[in-house]
């Protein structure tokens, strides 16, 4: 849930990231509130992935002041990594490990103890109705299950923030919606969700949406207010109005 009074969990001030003469992030500034679902939209090449890598502590900006989960992006990168979860369509689970082995592997990386891993794995498989599949290889389970499992694994260590980079690309429309049910639930449990998507109906599920064009944020508001502001029927129309002027 978005509340203007909530504490800022991500603060980005004047973020600049250049690759040679190309400016990927051009003085980006925004804040994400604790517990909200924050949609991070933009055309291909607008600079989203660059910004996400910096927020996850995987790359340094050229300049700017940034904190993630209260930690400084320059000095406390390891603390940031412990307090966030990450999932993308491309990078999720290991195909040649079983369901349980994947859970144990990720939970282990985050330093959870064996007993805790066992507890959380059982609870997780119960919730996803996957108890029977505990010892199945990931490559043998349906894509929809994989996506849900990948999300659950990304938050197995109860992070403050989870970053989801196009988590629903290519999945069927029912699974896509079940996936969003899980996002809503995580958000209710206090996890801040930072999500990118090319499905504009999903943009409407976010508490607030930012739209990046050419390395800058051109708009940031609730979906309702954005639609009013741009006199648009849907977030798809808002996106087209903002991003269409750009040559890619």
């Amino acid at each position, binding site marked *: 849930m978005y509340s203007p009074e909530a504490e800022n969990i991500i603060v980005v001030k004047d973020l600049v990231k250049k690759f040679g003469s190309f400016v990927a992030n051009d003085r980006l500034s925004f804040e994400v509130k604790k517990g909200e679902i924050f949609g991070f939209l933009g055309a291909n090449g607008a600079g989203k992935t660059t910004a996400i890598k910096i927020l996850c502590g995987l790359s340094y900006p050229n300049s700017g002041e940034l904190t993630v989960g209260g930690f400084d992006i320059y000095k406390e990168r390891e603390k940031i990594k412990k307090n966030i979860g990450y999932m993308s369509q491309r990078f999720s689970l290991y195909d040649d490990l079983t369901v349980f082995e994947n859970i144990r592997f990720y939970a282990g990386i985050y330093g959870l103890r064996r007993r805790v891993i066992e507890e959380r794995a059982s609870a997780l498989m119960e919730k996803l109705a996957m108890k029977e599949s505990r010892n199945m290889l990931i490559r043998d389970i349906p894509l929809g299950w994989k996506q849900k499992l990948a999300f659950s694994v990304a938050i197995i260590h109860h992070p403050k923030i989870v970053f989801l980079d196009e988590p629903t690309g290519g999945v069927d429309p029912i699974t896509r919606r079940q996936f*969003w049910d899980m996002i809503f639930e995580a958000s209710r449990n206090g996890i801040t969700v930072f999500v990118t998507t090319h499905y504009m109906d999903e943009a409407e599920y976010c508490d607030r949406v930012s739209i990046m064009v050419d390395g800058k944020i051109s708009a940031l508001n609730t979906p309702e207010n954005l639609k009013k502001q741009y006199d648009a029927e849907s977030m798809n129309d808002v996106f087209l109005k903002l991003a269409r002027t750009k040559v890619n």
Partner: protein
Amino acid sequence: MFSILVDHIEKHFTRVKALNDISFTVDKGELFGFIGPDGAGKTTLFRILTTLLIPDHGKALVNGLDVVKDFRKIRQDIGYMPGKFSLYSDLTVEENLNFYATVFGTTVAENYDLIRDIYSQIEPFKKRMAGKLSGGMKQKLALSCALIHKPSVLILDEPTTGVDAVSRLEFWEMLKRLKNSGISIVVATPYMDEASLCDRVALIQNGKIMAISPPSEVIKTYPRQLFSIKSDDIFSLLNDLRQIPQMHTVFAFGQSAHISFKQEPLTENFLYEYLCKKGHSNIKISHIQATIEDCFMDLMIKPQ
């Protein structure tokens, strides 16, 4: 003559039945869409049509030629854009295009008219390595390469997956122009909203075609009354609507929920009062026409 005729095709892999009794035809100059999620069997089917994979059963003809016996001739006639970016990353834009033209025994100059609209947008970057292009630009280059030998049939496997809404719109405008020049196009997509841009669509799931129709016909076959409901809290709205015993499906559509009922639909008044009691505010209820996505999900949950 059909551009494509597929007759009872089946294909098994060790673990799965990828295609299960697939039959359809594509008319000359038609824009035919395969709508379905990853794993539905679209790529397997396209690999059979492009003579890269042999079916276990059934027959498939492209321009009247058999995909197994006449594979060499078919390859001259078709343009194929695979789902995964398959151009040479370490060649420039221009080198890739020249390479594909040469392989097919033609030149870029000879068929430039056909690709002008598309290629002119990336021509300013023709000296750039293909691997360094943005997603939208890669897609335009791949389409140019698939077209450079002037194919009569174009087969596009998820050309818009991972592509932003603006580039997707532009891409479909290009397809419409190609179709108007007489090329038959078969295109796969996981985006349900793109279905309405095709002449006909096949809805495909788990290796089976669930329906084939013009998009305007698909939505008429939706078997139930459908309501769209809005309130201030979509998450609670979905949960509360799912508690109604008479409900058949409740799905989120942006900031609205679409609800259908098992038998007779509940009245709008009843729904309104029910939601008021649950503490919702700003409730809006309207009777709506189903979208392709509603139809697709309805077919998915139907016992097969």
